[in-house]
């Protein structure tokens, strides 16, 4: 059905998108690579000299780098653990017959639509503040010492905030997947005398595996780039206690004006993200075949 004529028309229709994305991919990334090999600081006028791998050397041997990698890992894995386990449980609950299901769904999904700066500030001030926050009030009501979340457990607090934002996403996707579960298969298993636990382990979980993988991979891509939540709550501190890789590169580039070092950090972030991306692409690619 596709003639030669429509083929070339199709190519013409696709090319603007392809060219733009190609430019977006290549130009800035090539510049980052280029800068990463220069001694280039916006505060130091004068010629930019070739630096070899020294930017990478300094970035990768900076103790802050290891802290940042560790924090990034803890942040990503912590949020993933909370959102996938919580998401599966919530989705199972919401899939049951109940009154007002639509409204509950709306309540659960809402945090996903709150912009990161708002949710971070609301949590920081109105919940985690050791004097006026709701958590402090609860602690006092229980006879405990109020806990200063953001200075004593900054990373944990940020994990809590980010998990609150992403739990709805996991729940929504897993709920959608649950609703496509073949109810006849369930009933057949029930008739054959399979217990609720057995049905969950042998039917529900295998059915959800793919969606859980999708949830994990997509969240990972976004979670590697968590930025605003850190900026408005802790600024990466105290010290570097809540600095992740994204925030470290931001600090290097736009706070210290070290273009060379920041670029080297950026390339490191790109490489790490690509390792995750390869897995995700395989998943989605496989799905495209079907």
């Amino acid at each position, binding site marked *: 059905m596709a003639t030669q004529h429509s083929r070339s028309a199709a190519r013409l229709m696709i090319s603007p998108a392809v060219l733009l994305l190609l430019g977006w991919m290549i130009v800035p990334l090539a510049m980052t690579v280029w800068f990463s090999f220069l001694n280039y600081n916006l505060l130091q006028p004068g010629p930019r000299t070739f630096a070899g791998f020294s930017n990478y050397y300094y970035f990768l041997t900076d103790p802050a780098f290891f802290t940042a990698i560790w924090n990034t890992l803890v942040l990503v894995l912590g949020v993933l653990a909370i959102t996938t386990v919580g998401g599966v449980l919530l989705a199972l609950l919401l899939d049951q017959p109940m009154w007002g299901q639509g409204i509950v769904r709306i309540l659960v999904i809402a945090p996903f639509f709150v912009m990161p700066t708002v949710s971070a500030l609301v949590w920081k001030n109105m919940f985690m503040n050791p004097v006026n926050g709701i958590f402090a009030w609860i602690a006092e009501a229980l006879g405990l010492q109020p806990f200063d979340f953001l200075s004593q457990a900054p990373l944990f607090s940020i994990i809590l905030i980010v998990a609150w934002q992403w739990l709805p996403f996991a729940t929504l996707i897993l709920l959608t997947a649950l609703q496509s579960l073949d109810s006849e298969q369930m*009933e057949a298993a029930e008739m054959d005398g399979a217990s609720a636990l057995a049905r969950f382990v042998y039917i529900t979980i295998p059915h959800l595996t793919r969606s859980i993988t999708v949830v994990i991979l997509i969240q990972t891509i976004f979670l590697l780039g968590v930025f605003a939540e850190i900026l408005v709550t802790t600024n990466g501190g105290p010290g570097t206690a809540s600095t992740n890789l994204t925030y470290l590169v931001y600090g290097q580039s736009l706070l210290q004006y070290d273009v060379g070092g*920041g670029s080297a950090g950026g390339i490191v972030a790109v490489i790490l993200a690509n390792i995750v991306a390869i897995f995700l692409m395989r998943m989605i690619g496989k799905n495209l075949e079907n």
Partner: protein
Amino acid sequence: MARRVTPARKATVTAAAWALGLLIFFPILWTILTSFKSEGDAVAIPPKFLFFHWTLENYAVVNQRSDYLLHFWNSVVISFGSTFAGLLIAIPAAWAMAFVPGRKTKDVLMWMLSTKMMPSVGVLVPIYLLFRNTGLLDTRIGLVIILTLIDLPIIVWMLYTYFKEIPGEILEAARMDGAGLRDEIIHVLTPMAVPGIASTLLLNVILAWNEAFWTLNLTAAKAAPLTAFIASYSSPEGLFYAKLSAASTMAIAPILILGWFSQKQLVRGLTFGAVK
């Protein structure tokens, strides 16, 4: 489907689900409530839940003091501008890939997706410098350009998954009835494509509205959308809880409402069609 559920079980499930739902929603509810309090009531311990003097004063103050409308308008221009620009570029591309698929179509789609995986911070330095040197820093047009580029892959993908579901037989039937290419597009394809385009638009406006990496790094006073404006409350000014809440409520309300209409599209759009 006729699985019997005892009323007692249904009641238990309902109670548990509502309790959890309200717990998850509580921070938003609390923000909305606090926005109607006086600053004194906002920090009162024990907290005042419903019995306080309700006031609209915070909304008035926020609107007067901080050019709230300017930032709101910036958000509107940036999110809708980038979405429309993205649709303009993506519709022909997705269309061609769905209806005239070639051998390379899948590779092109996967490659587009891979551009989305690039962490923004990897290109922060060059984009910042390019913007600085071309005078695009702190301009709405600059942000529209960036957000168009970063959302383009999602827009193409979403449209593609929708267009793909339009049955090809319909085109053939129209052709048999003597419809030309023009009629085909105007009378057959467009009506079937509109829902998909609308869903894509909705989801992308939401994503662009809440984008908080580039908006924070590339804007200052002039072009800052609400994400960046709210971030300015992280300074000691943030101690004014009621005003923070009023500004926040106004910033999230429109998108909360849009978002509730787009639950289905969200799943599809954000999983690139992997979960429907």
